[in-house]
């Protein structure tokens, strides 16, 4: 197949996908998004069978995907999947509606309703921006006084989305969370992200270790992936003290360098093989 690889930074993941696709006999065209012009009103003569969207910048990913889809080229992941996964509120709403266990979550737009919701959630609570990644701007409030300080800071920030107070009951994890990969209905590999920090993101120093894919994990990951529209996803889960697995976030432009290092699993090869299989249907 003729595969496009749209990206802005060439990281481990982009090089791994490039090498895997070439090894499997496909032609890969690199689309370095920041250096290209994209015409919206004139149909382009793009001839890709599909494009992997790999921009680290969300807005570059969404904008270039709009143009690719305008030219009737399938993009992995699609515009809707990328957009829905970026929005934590929308992700939680989709998961909850699909019957997937998520942390108790409320949203409020001003201080008083945020404090009222947090009293009902019970402290500690976690306040997240609805957009963002790598654990940025996520804060934990052990009590109401701290939450008031956090909300005051947020109310004095310029971005309107920061004033959307997405509040979750804090889940007391066992020093780790789980990152599992959903690849077109399959769950090929998962890791624990082990950390002394309550934020276990590997971007913040969490250490990757292989995790078993239990029947329960597989079922939840598949249900979550389907709720967000499928494709290739990174699904983050927390083990709650009452023994349930709660889905915290879904990532649509997944990083997997640490997963490959910890498990030796050829995830790039799996992503290419499964995507080609789906595109040939």
């Amino acid at each position, binding site marked *: 197949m003729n595969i496009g690889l749209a990206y802005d930074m060439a990281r481990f993941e982009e090089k791994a996908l490039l090498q895997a696709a070439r090894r499997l006999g496909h032609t890969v065209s690199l689309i*370095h998004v920041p250096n290209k012009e994209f015409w919206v009103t004139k149909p382009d003569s793009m001839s890709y069978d599909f494009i992997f969207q790999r921009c680290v910048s969300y807005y570059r990913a969404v904008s270039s995907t709009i143009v690719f889809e305008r030219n009737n080229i399938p993009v992995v992941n699609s515009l809707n999947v990328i957009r829905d996964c970026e929005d934590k509120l929308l992700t939680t709403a989709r998961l909850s509606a699909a019957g997937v266990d998520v942390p108790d979550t409320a949203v409020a737009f001003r201080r008083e309703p945020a404090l009222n919701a947090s009293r009902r959630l019970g402290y500690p609570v976690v306040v997240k921006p609805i957009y963002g990644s790598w654990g940025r701007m996520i804060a934990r409030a052990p009590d109401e006084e701290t939450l008031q300080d956090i909300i005051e800071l947020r109310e004095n920030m310029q971005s309107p989305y920061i004033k959307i107070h997405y509040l979750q009951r804090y889940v007391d994890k066992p020093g780790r969370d789980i990152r599992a990969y959903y690849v077109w209905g399959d769950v090929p590999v998962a890791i624990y992200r082990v950390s002394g920090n309550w934020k276990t993101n590997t971007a913040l120093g969490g250490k990757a270790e292989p995790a078993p894919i239990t029947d329960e994990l597989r079922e939840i990951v598949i249900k979550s992936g389907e709720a967000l529209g499928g494709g290739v996803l990174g699904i983050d889960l927390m083990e709650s003290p009452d023994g349930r697995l709660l889905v915290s976030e879904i990532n649509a432009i997944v990083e997997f360098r640490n997963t490959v290092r910890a498990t030796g699993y050829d995830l790039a090869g799996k992503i290419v093989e499964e995507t080609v299989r789906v595109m040939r249907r």
Partner: protein
Amino acid sequence: MPELSCPVCGGTMAVPEDALAGELFEHGECGAQLELIVDDSGSMSLKMAEEVAEDWGE
């Protein structure tokens, strides 16, 4: 390996033949984070890498 000029310190830096546009390198001499630029003719150069932005992530 192509020898390119560092836009920060003016020193030279060797870049692998198979490096991709958008690949990041740290210049050993000055510590600058640099991004490889490849123009339409295939000519390579280095520029300072972008700072991590608010919309970067997974």
